[in-house]
Each structure stands twice: as structure tokens, then as C-alpha cells.
């Protein structure tokens, strides 16, 4: 393939990808029904409740997942042990699985004897808000481990070795050198995990149901409004979700670019 054709090939790919995403966003914003204006629906009480619920559950789930993902990803990146590839593949399963399967699995977990004990003595998950958090946590964790592991693997262990000779304990080297040097991966991992959490429908609806004003996250509310032919409201929420994703991803990229400089 000549240089010119190769450039055409690249341009076609880039153009098609951008057009697809722009079209998805444009058709949402372009929809203005006489009675069902999507922007008017954004101020309604149940919509605001869904937004609030989605924001805090996804942030909590992604934060908890980050706490677990950091040591998991670091261990997978640095330790060499028998069965490492198996563990690595296992942790990727939630990325590939349909979220509904994860939701079903979580329901089965909380139907088991230990799960029932937790439900009765610690906190209720099934058809409750904590169920949303745990579903989002599982999805977010897999994503964050993937991104963070790549970041830790990219970091030359020599930096940590030098830090040890400068007086750091293994944890000290990790805290003072590894984590700051992997800051971009940490932010990227958290945002990817958070995006996965806030956008989830299948796992959330399976374990927590779709109780209005209780377990109705933005994706669940979109589905519920579509089912009841409230197109404007569904689209308003869809636009909001799209805007949140776009703003967050843009901020992360700007932050990343600044760090690089």
C-alpha cells in the first residue's frame, strides 16, 4: 500500500469513528419534541434523584475499587508466581461478561448461606442501593486492574530499587516513587472504572431492580422512561449521561497532557 493510500485508509477509519460518535450525540441533542422536550425533563424530581444516585454510587464504587485495584494490579505486575496468567485472565472475566451475568451471580452470592447472613446481619444488597454499589464495584474493579497493571508494568523497577538504596522500605518506595510516577495511570484507571460504573444497566437492574426514587440510576431511568414512552425524559437523561462522560474524559485528557509536559 502506497503512502497516499495508507493516509486515505487512516483518514477513513478516523472519519468513520468520529462520525459515529458525533451522530450518536447529535441525534440526542437534535431531538426536540413539542411536548417531550428532553431539556425540560432534566429539572424533574425523579430525574434529579436518578442523577444524584448514579453520581454518588458510581463514585463510591470506583473509589472502593481503586483501593483494591492498586495492590492487585501491582502484585500482578511485579510478582512472578505459578498461575499468574490464570489469575490475570480470571480478573479480566467481568470485562468480557455481560453485566446481567454479573448481576445474576451477585444475586446467587446473596442467596447462599454466608450471603444470607450478610443480608440479615450486616447490610442488605438485593433490591437495595448497596446492591448498586457492589455491582458497579465488580465492573469497575476489573477495568481499573487492567489499566493500572499496564501502568505499573511500564514503570522500570530500577526506580524502586534506587529508592530502596536511598532508604525507602518496599512500601516507602511504592508510596513515594511508584504511585506518583504512575499518577496518570491511576487517574485513567479510576475514570475508566467510574465510567463503567455510571454507565452500567444490566448488573444494577438485576441485583437492585428498578424501584423509582430508590434504586433508579440514570441508565435504569432511561430504560424505564423508554418503556413507558416518555421519550423526551429518556433522551434528557441520555444527553446528561453523554455530557458527563464527555466532560470527564476531556478533563482527564487535559490533566494527562499537563502531566506529560
Amino acid at each position, binding site marked *: 500500500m502506497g503512502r497516499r493510500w495508507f493516509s486515505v485508509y487512516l483518514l477513513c477509519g478516523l472519519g468513520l469513528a468520529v462520525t459515529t460518535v458525533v451522530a450518536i450525540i447529535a441525534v440526542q441533542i437534535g431531538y426536540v419534541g413539542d411536548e417531550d422536550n428532553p431539556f425540560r425533563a432534566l429539572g424533574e424530581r425523579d430525574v434529579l434523584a436518578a442523577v444524584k444516585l448514579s453520581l454518588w454510587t458510581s463514585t463510591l464504587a470506583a473509589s472502593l475499587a481503586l483501593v483494591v485495584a492498586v495492590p492487585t494490579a501491582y502484585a500482578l505486575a511485579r510478582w512472578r508466581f505459578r498461575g499468574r496468567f490464570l489469575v490475570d485472565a480470571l480478573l479480566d472475566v467481568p470485562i468480557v461478561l455481560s453485566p446481567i451475568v454479573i448481576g445474576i451471580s451477585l444475586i446467587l452470592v446473596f442467596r447462599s448461606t454466608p450471603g444470607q447472613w450478610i443480608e440479615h446481619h450486616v447490610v442488605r444488597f438485593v433490591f437495595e442501593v448497596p446492591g448498586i454499589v457492589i455491582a458497579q464495584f465488580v465492573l469497575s474493579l476489573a477495568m481499573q486492574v487492567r489499566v493500572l497493571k499496564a501502568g505499573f508494568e511500564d514503570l522500570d523497577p530500577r*526506580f524502586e*530499587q*534506587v529508592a530502596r*538504596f*536511598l532508604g525507602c522500605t518496599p512500601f*516507602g518506595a511504592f508510596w*513515594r516513587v511508584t504511585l*506518583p510516577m504512575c*499518577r496518570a495511570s491511576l487517574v485513567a484507571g479510576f475514570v475508566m472504572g467510574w465510567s463503567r460504573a455510571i454507565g452500567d444497566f444490566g448488573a444494577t437492574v438485576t441485583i437492585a431492580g428498578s424501584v423509582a426514587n430508590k434504586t433508579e440510576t440514570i441508565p435504569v431511568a432511561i430504560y424505564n422512561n423508554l418503556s413507558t414512552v416518555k421519550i423526551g425524559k429518556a433522551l434528557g437523561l441520555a444527553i446528561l449521561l453523554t455530557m458527563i462522560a464527555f466532560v470527564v474524559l476531556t478533563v482527564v485528557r487535559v490533566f494527562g497532557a499537563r502531566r506529560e509536559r
Partner: protein
Amino acid sequence: MISVRGLVASSGPFRLRPVDLEVGAGELLVLLGPAGAGKTVLLEALLGMRPIHAGAIVIDGRAVTTTPPEQRHVAYMPQDVALFPHLSVRANIEFGRRVRGQHAGLAADVDRIVESLGIARLLARPGVRSLSGGEAQRVALARALVTRPRVLFLDESFSALDAHIRQRLLHQFRALQQELGLTAIYVTHSLGEAAAVADRIAVLIDAGLVQLSTPERLFREPRDLRVARFLQLDNLYAVGALDGAQATIGGVRLTLAAAPAVAGPAWLAASAGDLMLVHPGDPAVATNLLRGTIAGLDRRHGHSRARIAVDADAGGGGGGGGGDGDVVLECELTARDRLVLGDDLTAGRPVTIHVPPAAVAVFPEVTA
């Protein structure tokens, strides 16, 4: 300062043969050897970064064989320097002291060391990414020295630099190391670097420590053929016959300074810089006068070298014997040679070459 006894370390399938080593306080020991000889494995084993299967390491009277790196109070400077890119130049240099909570006198120590290394102007830099190779090496050296280590370990630390910067930095480092009385172990594969800075050189070949001696002695008395080949000694020949202080190479008999104690096959080497072209009747030299012809001239690295094919019937005075023409000796040409013999030192000219007995090193082909 450092005592190593029977140390056996490994890196994957590579395993060092047992190493015994003593390094004195304030000494700069160079670990020298070809690529793959085990220099870095030995250094990393001394640092505690490699599994140790046997032996013991004592630093400053304290057994540290299994001590974690941060408790050894030694500094390590790898080839890629590994400056922390998220910290400023000053924060990099102060890192070790701050981690250990040793803030007293830190500013003064930093100022003194950066002044000695000529990098005071870099202290205000907010990051290390913009530093040149030489600057980064100096900052890394300052970072190591500020911790006041008991021993400084350097792994090919200056090898990636341009020759002139490396040379300057090596001299700067050597001066500072002597001024501070710092014990240092420096790994390199470069003979020039080793000879320029070492108090003693430890030669590693084929996963074993083969020889440990001063640079002068190393080049004068290589332990065996492997060392001589690695050191690229001049005029390396298998000794045909060894009879007391007489050695014969390719039919040419040479008188040695003393009878060498070599059992089994022997080799000899003679430094090209020590060999001299002389007038046949020069009364100042009586031994090892060999007649021959200039086979060629080499002009490299600013030196001229003549390759002298020793005559098959070269009946030299004193101990010189008849050769069969297989012996070609390399001789460094000096201004004196040109003064004495004239400027027409060209290929084909008959000459007489003197091999001073003290310039000849005889050593075994192999040692245990």
C-alpha cells in the same frame, strides 16, 4: 570495609562461581570483564538484589548478606541513573536524606556536593526531564553522595556518555571519591575507564573472579591467557619452550627478567610501548636484540605502531635467537625512534628491535 567470602549468586540460569573479595576503606575497586561475565550479577548480589545461594557479605564489620537494601547504608547508581521524574532536581538530590529523616546539615551538604560537581545552577530546575546526559549523571551522583553512604556502587554509570564528557566526569568522580574517602565499587567493561580510576581491578570472566590486582600489575602480570586476551595485551604468543629465564616463541628466543613459575602450556605478551627500535650496535642494550623488517605501519588513536616481522635467521646479540619469520612484533613508534633512525620508517626497511626482558610477561594458558 567490604569482605566477601564464597559468594554464590544467580540471575535466572546464570550462576556465579564462588567469589572471595576484600575491599579496603576508601578504595575504588573496579569490576571489569566482558559482557556476560557476571559483573552486574556480582554487584547486584553485593547490593542484595540477587538471590544468594552461599557465602557471606560483611560491610563495615556488619554482616549484611540478608539485610534489606534500605538498611545497608550503601548507595547505588545504575547506568540509566533513574532520577525520579516527578521530583525537582533539588528534591531528587535530597530524597535519600529526607526519607531517612536526616534533615540536620542537609542544605550545607547539598551545597557542598553540587558545588564540587559543578551543578549548583541546576538546583532550581523544577524537573529532571530537561537535563542532558552528563547533567543527569552528576545529579544522580549528588543524590547518592548526599546520603553519606558507607559504600557507593556504580553500574556502568558513565558508559552511555560521550567520550569527552565521560572522561571529565570520571576524573571529577575520582577526585571527589578520594576527597571524601569513600569506598566505591565500579562496574565497567571498558579497560580505559578501569585503568583511569581504579585502585584495584577485579577481572571477571566466564562467571568467575579470575584476577584481582592493581591496574599496573594486571597489565604486567595477567593471570592467564583469558585475562591477557580480554586486556588485549600486545604481542601475545604461545611459548614453544620455556627453559628457566629463556622463552622461545616461533623459534625466537627471548630472555626474561626472571624464570616464571608456570606449569603446563605458557604464553607471553610484551607491551608495544616498551619495545624499542635501536641501532644494531647500540651498546646500551645487550639482550633480546632481534633483526627484522617493517611489515607495516598503523596510525590509530594518535599513535604510530610498526609491525616488525622478525627475521628467520635473526641472530641477535645476547639472548636473541634465530626466528623462522612467524613472529611479528608490534612496536609503538616514538619521537625518539624517529630521531635515532630517521624519518624513513616505511614498510620493507630492515630494523633491529629490542625487547626489554622486564616488558615480557609469561603466564599459563589456563588456571584452575
